[in-house]
């Protein structure tokens, strides 16, 4: 079942715009805002996790080998991870050339 993203009419708006379904903001994929994506060079990565700590979206996760990647459904491409990565293992690359 696919739920509607937002009410169709003003009459369907809940009082106070309250949302009674928990976790619904997950369905809002902020990744569509992105112009650049972070690209990890695991040869340079020292697995310190700074990218994971600094990501304001909380969308950087650690894989089974201890390296990191971003969930592109939510990564806005802000570049904070690349800015903070002191070994210089993250590069921001254009989504489209």
């Amino acid at each position, binding site marked *: 079942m696919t739920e509607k993203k*937002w*009410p169709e*009419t*003003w009459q369907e708006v809940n*009082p*106070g*715009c*309250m949302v*009674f379904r*928990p976790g619904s903001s997950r369905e809002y994929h902020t990744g569509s805002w992105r112009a650049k994506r972070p690209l990890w060079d695991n040869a340079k990565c020292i697995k310190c996790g700074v990218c994971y700590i600094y990501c304001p979206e909380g969308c950087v996760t650690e894989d089974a080998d201890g390296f990191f990647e971003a969930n592109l459904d939510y990564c806005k491409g802000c570049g904070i991870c690349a800015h903070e990565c002191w070994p210089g293992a993250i590069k921001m690359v254009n989504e489209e050339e």
Partner: protein
Amino acid sequence: MGKRVGMEVAIASAEAAALCKFDVAAVYPITPQSHVAEHLSDIVNDGRVDASFITVESEHSALSAAMGASATGARVVTATSSQGLLYMHEVLPITSAMRLPIVMLIANRAISGPINIWNDHSDIMPQRDTGWISFFADNGQEVVDMTIQAFKVAEHREVMLPVNVNMDGFQLTHMVEPIIMPDQGEVDRFLPEYVPYATLHPDRPVSMGTLAMPEIYAEAQKAKNVAIVNSKKIILEVWKEWEKLFGRRYEPIQAYRTKDADVALVTMGSMGETAEIAVEELRKQGVKAGLLKIKLWRPFPFAELRKAVQGIRVLAVTDRACSFGGPGGPVFSEIRSALYEEPVRPAIVNYIIGLGGRDVQVEDFMEMVRQAARGKLSEPYVFYGVRG
């Protein structure tokens, strides 16, 4: 049965809130509201109601804390004045958008600058469009009655909106007046226990204060407007019930000797009582004067106004604030706009009076009626009594 007492109106407003058994008060003191804040604090400290008093560091925090408390399902009261109300401004439209039934007692005072602590309505007028229901009281009895009514209206399932009760600073707040204070049993019969629509609770997840994208923001605003427009029906019902239980009648626009009136004054707040005396004096002199007192400012009672002005030749609308660079005072522009579509409508003149505590006496209102009888003033709106 209620008891007739002599009580300072600010204290009486806090006592009225206590009769409503509020759960939380979040208040920051400011002249001339301070006695409300202090007395609410006393009431909680003395254990007269089972409530928390949140000592906040500002008015912005006062209303924010009030909202948080209200979201958990508490009955919440706050109070402020002037600069404090302006500092709260950012939070006011959020309170109404989140449909939190908070009651705010406002001791109306001029806004800075020049700095001035005395009474006018320039603090509440910038809050006009924030989606709060606004009551204006003429006297101490109305302050007490409206405070109790406010909780019932705000919490009604078909309303769920915050209400502010406006009482003129000093002219009302610091006056000791004879007031019939309802007893606890009467208030309990009138005001049921608050049953919130939804509350913040870990067992029943709910998001309040959500984000709205352009695709839904406009629908949300329309829904909010419909809510406050429709609240008038409930306000009228609550006032009818009040009259039945307590014998005191409340109307959105209270008419005083307007049946055969040629010229009618329009007032909002405590100056209505001075204007009543002016009407009596003018009648003794053979002038057919009348008075309309606005008690409900938002939602504005358009239908009641159109009915109330029938047969009146000239309306002399008084304002206690100015819309700088605009059409005159906010009450004036509202009334003129409300009557625009009427095939027969009175001439309407505007006096801006009583700014920053300037005294307006019986003779002043009489003079305003005499001038207004000509149907036109020297300017589109007049700062009455201003020297120069």
